[in-house]
């Protein structure tokens, strides 16, 4: 009897502890995600001054030529970026997964490299390489007397964005291609189908869900990106308009909020469309009695062609890094295919005066990553392992951050927290911790996915065994679940950290003084003046190295922890 009572109390206590944790997370999300976004939407629908509900702001939006043009430009650029990114990703994914291809791992790794540099930094390097008077065009002009407008106007944005974001398609597509059981193809061959027809009729349809997932992500990312068009001096796109409106006219002007609302709507629409297209198409074909992946050996000429294509694409997508590296060592680089001379001066300068950016970035991104994995682990645990009421809501809210453009979050924070005064009279919105929170919110969906994946791999029976041996729920989580999830949690941390380290859209709004600014902001400032490009490039190279080193380190740690658990083969 006493025992039964004790047990019951124990259960209640567990429930209360979980509920408290869940409530804290819910409050955090409510405060820093839902409220700011709701504020933005609310302002967009209220009349300036009176505060009455109105559509007039949207009517104004639709009547303003600049905004309509910006909207269509954004749609065009995003769609074209998806197309071009697909052109890069499709051959790489196919060649490295469906064929025996030496260096496949290297290519898959190099394919990631573009992601670890802010696209606007790449934009500067791309100007120097592909711009009207860039290396390529100067050479083309010399040899053939022609110039190709790679970087003119919207083209430039499409080109830079496609190169930056194509890894999203590459990764997702490769994963689905790798999941196609060889018997799927063999059955088709057995029935008389081969070659390109086989790819078109069987392989590609099966990989389509992965492709769509990647493509929709690219679309949304490009649609929301702010700094790349600004640096390429393209102002008539939607995200830059939102930023310019709020920074030039002020946070009271409703038009910035209308644009922000449109950005959210398009993001949600794009994600909804891809989810709808994928519904019922979860083609995991790895099956019992199946033979795993089939990798075809290439004939000699096929192999030669494959190498040519792969090198061409890799050359293109790595060009921004190469350009940046050259620029960071260049004395003067203008109207010539290569820099006039080389120097270390930019690095000395950057280390001297810009070290604070690096320090801030490491601090902000680590804190954001930490917040993300704590929230991610907790939410994943609530959803997968408990019957807590409202747990799906937590998951839903955390994932919804994916559909909130950085500019929108930035604007929302300004509007919501500017009025909140700290004891010293300083507005809450101007505190550096707000940058950290914005970064954490923006990256939470990625960390959450990683935590889900990690938790799903842990069999429930392992936890039950611990409880059976007398460990309470909380102790089971601490002693069994978290240690087993380490790899996944670290993976979540690194993806949050490395993307937060180069994020700019939300930060651009929130940075108040350059002593609080992270790297990406510093880069942006440097890159805006021609004289700042050398030091900017040096800073960019440092940022890339920083992120790459962290990624590599985490990879090592994950490998080791998985190896210790016997998870890796």
């Amino acid at each position, binding site marked *: 009897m006493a025992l039964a009572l004790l047990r019951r109390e124990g259960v209640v206590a567990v429930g209360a502890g979980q509920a408290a944790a869940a409530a804290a997370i819910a409050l955090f999300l409510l405060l820093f995600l839902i409220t700011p976004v709701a504020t933005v939407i609310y302002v967009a629908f209220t009349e300036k001054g009176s505060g009455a509900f109105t559509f007039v702001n949207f009517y104004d939006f639709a009547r303003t030529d600049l905004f309509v043009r910006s909207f269509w430009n954004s749609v065009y650029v995003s769609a074209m970026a998806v197309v071009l990114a697909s052109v890069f990703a499709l051959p790489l994914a196919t060649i490295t997964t469906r064929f025996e291809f030496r260096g496949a791992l290297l290519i898959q790794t190099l394919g990631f490299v573009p992601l670890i540099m802010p696209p606007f930094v790449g934009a500067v390097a791309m100007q120097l390489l592909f711009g009207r008077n860039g290396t390529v065009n100067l050479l083309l002009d010399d040899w053939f007397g022609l110039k190709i407008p790679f970087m003119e106007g919207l083209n430039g944005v499409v080109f830079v964005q496609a190169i930056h974001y194509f890894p999203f398609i590459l990764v997702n597509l490769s994963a689905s291609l790798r999941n196609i*059981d060889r018997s799927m193809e*063999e*059955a088709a061959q*057995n029935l*008389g189908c*081969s070659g390109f027809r086989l790819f078109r009729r069987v392989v590609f*349809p099966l990989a389509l869900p992965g492709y769509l997932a990647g493509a929709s992500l690219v679309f949304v990312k490009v649609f929301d990106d702010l700094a790349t068009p600004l640096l390429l001096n393209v102002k008539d796109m939607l995200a830059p308009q939102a930023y310019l409106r709020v920074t030039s006219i002020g946070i009271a002007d409703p038009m910035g909020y209308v644009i922000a609302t449109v950005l959210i709507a398009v993001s949600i629409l794009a994600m909804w469309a891809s989810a709808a297209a994928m519904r019922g198409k979860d083609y995991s074909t790895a099956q*019992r*009695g199946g033979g795993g992946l089939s990798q075809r050996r290439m004939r000699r000429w096929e192999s030669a062609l494959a190498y040519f294509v792969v090198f061409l694409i890799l050359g293109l997508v790595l060009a921004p890094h190469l350009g940046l590296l050259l620029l960071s060592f260049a004395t003067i680089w203008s109207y010539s295919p290569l820099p006039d001379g080389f120097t270390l001066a930019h690095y000395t300068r950057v280390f001297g005066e810009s070290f604070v950016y690096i320090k801030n970035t490491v601090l902000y991104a680590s804190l954001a990553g930490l917040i993300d994995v704590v929230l991610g682990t907790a939410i994943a645990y609530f959803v997968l392992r408990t019957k807590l009421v409202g747990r799906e809501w937590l998951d839903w809210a955390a994932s919804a951050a994916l559909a909130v453009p950085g500019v929108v979050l930035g604007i929302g924070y300004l509007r919501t927290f500017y009025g909140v005064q700290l004891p010293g009279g300083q507005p809450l919105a101007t505190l550096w911790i707000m940058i950290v929170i914005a970064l954490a919110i923006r990256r939470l969906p990625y960390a959450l996915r990683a935590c889900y994946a990690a938790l799903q791999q842990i069999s429930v029976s392992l936890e039950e065994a611990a409880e059976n041996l007398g460990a309470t729920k909380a102790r089971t989580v601490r002693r069994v679940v978290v240690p087993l999830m380490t790899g996944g949690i670290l993976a979540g941390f690194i993806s949050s950290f490395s993307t937060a380290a180069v994020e700019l859209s939300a930060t651009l709004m929130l940075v108040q003084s350059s002593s609080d600014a992270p790297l990406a902001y510093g880069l942006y400032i440097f890159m805006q003046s021609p004289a700042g490009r050398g030091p900017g490039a040096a800073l960019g190279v440092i940022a890339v190295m920083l992120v790459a080193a962290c990624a590599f380190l985490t990879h090592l740690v994950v490998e080791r922890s998985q190896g210790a658990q016997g998870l890796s083969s």
Partner: protein
Amino acid sequence: MPEIVQNEPVRVRGDALQPLGVRVENVDLSYGANHVLKDVTLDVAPGEFFAFLGPSGCGKTTLLRLIAGFNQADRGRVLVGGEDVSRLPPWKRDVGMVFQSYALWPHMTVWRNVAFGLEERRLPRAQIKQRVAEALELVGLSHLADRRPSQLSGGQQQRVAVARTVAIRPKVLLLDEPLSNLDAKLRVQVRRELRDLQQRLGITTIFVTHDQEEANTICDRIAVMNEGKIQQVGTPLELYQRPANLFVASFLGAANILSGEVVGAGSDRAFRLGEVFLPIPPGATIPPGAKLVFRPQDVQITGKGSGAFSGTIVHREFLGAMTRYGVRVGGTEILIDAPFHAGDRLHEVGQEVAAMVAPEAMLWLAS
């Protein structure tokens, strides 16, 4: 009109198709250092229902995939209908294969799955329609044509996989453990259906399984494989009655395999198991090092008599139609199956009994 004749690929035959034989000649195949098929030679007669039977990992799937063209032999060749197909890619072989996993394409409906091979053969639309309908009719799934594979039960998926393969009217039908993903009851039903279907189509069929009962019940002939080698080829009865070696004897049904020593000479020869001597029937030829093999039901528990030996019952399993006794004789244990009839009394564990092996049931096999 000549065009129409050309539209009709040669390999599409009418309903009265002439079954073709399959011949595998001196095939060797390795995966790296792993020598998986060792000098395999095999003849499957036209129209035959043939089985590859063997334990897991012995190379059955490998051999089947070799015939389908998914594996390349290091040596040897494969002939279908007397024609060497070793150099043909899978899509030119016209050898229909049903995969163990069924390999139904999840992005196509049942109808589209079945139509796939016909479309690849560029048949006219009307003919595709008719042949898909026929194939679905054949497996009794016409009403599910619009479903996706994920909306079908295991047994239905299996039948779609069969329909998809027979729709192209292949020269030979290959089935890789087609029943292994089904539950025990369905397995019995589906294997009958498969046999029926094969009889109706008259198509040469090779069936891979590691279940001897499956092979015995539906196949005309069986090739028993072990460690990449064909151990014996024959009808189920031949294999059971006259196993060529110890592996075949033990793999097909229960067998007592006794090692001992031949003592005496001429008509007084006996097989010594510890202190017990079993008389050897006159005229038996015993290869050197051979073991004595006999089936449990070929031993009878009798009163003492000539040729009988005695032992102690150490365990007993009542199985309904018969009782299986474990009897300790000399140093070894012998299984004895005694049929059970109403009113029979069972022997008790610990009881001493005398037993006798029917002389014609004794086999002397070397490994």
